[in-house]
């Protein structure tokens, strides 16, 4: 089959973006399944500015043909205004929804490539859901399009203009069961031809539990968070909670952070924070392996790859109970605990620190779950089945 995978940006080292990583991984899996795959993306590298930084053109990478197209011009002021209205709970009129989508991320050149026949793709895999580009691709070739929505339970997912486009497509490749249920809640009467929970394959790895501490000299027990640091990811809660934990319990527990984004920790927490920024995969895995817990306080995730990685590194997870997907991951794997407020966080972190055998068992259960459910082979089989249907 000829397959196009459409992503807003090309996944590259240093690019933080879960959806881009997921789509790139699915494209590679499709190549391994023997398909001919084009990765269609924009020239943008920065997910805040969406400026055309890379030149448009075609090149080969990892067995894929990458085709880059320019991002359309947009009215960022109008977009920001509508985005704020949406985020603050306002309902946008149909006209405003169109304006919001038209001034988000679009690429007429990319959509025209598909409309003009492109390379006569048999399947078009596109995501995530909240971009005008994704909507236009769905409208361009609905009978061949499989959407990787990466739905979160958030205001943008309730934009009816998106639902209208998504209700006509061939199918959906979900990351988790809660995401599939959310899609049906958002779009009643949804009955696509293909509905598969595919997710992303993770290569198994082993990581030393002591290498990170030996290299960095961090002797205190620590918890870790990897990824973007921002309000939507719950980073401020993590900082507040750990600061309170240290002050109330008197335990010198540190916080290791990898990834990008500014943080504003309380001054009393500053000496206990080790902000590593971007690190190699090996360093990240070793840092995870040495941690008492991987803490993820985000309530808006469609699949947390870093939680799966922490289990492979044999570290239990501690997640926010209001995050349906993260809680579901911990429940399904029996690989971690979930808290809904500070008292539960305090008791659960204390539990993991004071009961290393139980913590290790939770982590081992998590690892077994990842190996069986998210092995590259298992994911490829699910993807292959969805593409063929």
């Amino acid at each position, binding site marked *: 089959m000829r397959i196009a995978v459409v992503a807003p940006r090309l996944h590259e080292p240093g690019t933080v973006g879960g959806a881009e990583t997921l789509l790139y991984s699915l494209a590679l899996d499709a190549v391994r399944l023997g398909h001919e795959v084009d990765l269609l993306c924009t020239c943008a590298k920065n997910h805040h500015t969406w400026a055309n930084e890379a030149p448009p053109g075609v090149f080969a990478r990892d067995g894929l043909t990458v085709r880059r197209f320019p991002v359309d011009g947009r009215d960022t002021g109008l977009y920001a205004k509508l985005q704020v209205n949406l985020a603050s709970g306002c309902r946008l009129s149909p006209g405003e929804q169109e304006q919001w989508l038209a001034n988000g991320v679009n690429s007429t050149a990319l959509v025209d490539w598909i409309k003009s026949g492109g390379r006569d793709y048999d399947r078009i895999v596109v995501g995530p859901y909240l971009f005008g580009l994704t909507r236009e691709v769905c409208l361009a070739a609905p009978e061949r399009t499989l959407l990787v929505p990466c739905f979160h339970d958030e205001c943008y997912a309730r934009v009816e203009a998106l639902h209208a486009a998504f209700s006509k497509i061939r199918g959906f490749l979900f990351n988790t069961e809660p995401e599939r249920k959310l899609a049906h809640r958002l779009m009643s009467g949804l009955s696509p031809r293909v509905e598969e929970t595919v997710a992303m394959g993770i290569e198994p790895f082993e990581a030393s539990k002591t290498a990170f501490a030996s290299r960095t000299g961090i002797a205190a027990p620590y918890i870790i968070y990897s990824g973007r640091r921002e309000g939507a990811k719950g980073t401020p809660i993590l900082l507040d909670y750990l600061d309170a934990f240290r002050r109330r319990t008197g335990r010198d527990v540190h916080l290791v952070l990898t990834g990008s984004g500014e943080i504003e920790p309380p001054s009393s927490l500053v000496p206990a924070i080790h902000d590593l920024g971007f690190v190699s995969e090996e360093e990240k895995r070793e840092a995870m392996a040495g941690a008492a817990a991987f803490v993820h306080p985000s309530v808006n995730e469609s699949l947390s790859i870093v939680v799966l990685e922490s289990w492979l590194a044999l570290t239990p997870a501690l997640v926010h109970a*209001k995050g349906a997907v993260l809680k579901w991951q*911990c*429940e399904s794997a029996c690989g971690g605990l979930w808290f809904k407020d*500070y*008292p539960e966080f305090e008791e659960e972190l204390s*539990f993991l620190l004071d009961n290393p055998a139980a913590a290790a068992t939770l982590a081992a*259960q998590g690892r077994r779950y990842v190996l069986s459910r998210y092995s590259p082979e298992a994911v490829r089989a699910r993807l292959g089945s969805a593409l063929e249907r």
Partner: protein
Amino acid sequence: MAKYDENDDTPPAIEIGADGIDAHKIVEQIRAAVADKRARGVYDDEIVARAERNNLLLIEDDEQFMEQYLRCLRQIVPVDINDFEIMEKRGSLRPLMILLKKTIWKLLKFYTYRLWSQQNQTNAVLLAAIETMNRRHKSEISRLESRIEALESGRGG
């Protein structure tokens, strides 16, 4: 569990069997322990109240949200006018800027007292009003629920 509480309960007895460990069971046991400690006021302090500032919006649909919100509000309602750690990010000018800020704080501190006392009065009145409203609503809802139950049982019978 946490070391701070000398009267602390025995940690949950978690069994690790051949089938492993049940995360649900651990969370349930911890929640029961939290409920008990909460009733004893173990978490009623300003540190917990301030730690919850970013979390309260996330749990607004929770059954216990109002109780917890008010608990936090009660802890932080008095404005803190004590001296605080003065920070400065600009590396080269840091000592000078900190000295300058400390001097300004010393000079202005006296004038904040008036604001402080007025703000504390306002906060106390607002808290009392919210607590009263909450109590009245709860009592009204409870009365209406009893009435609905009585009406329904009368109709069913």
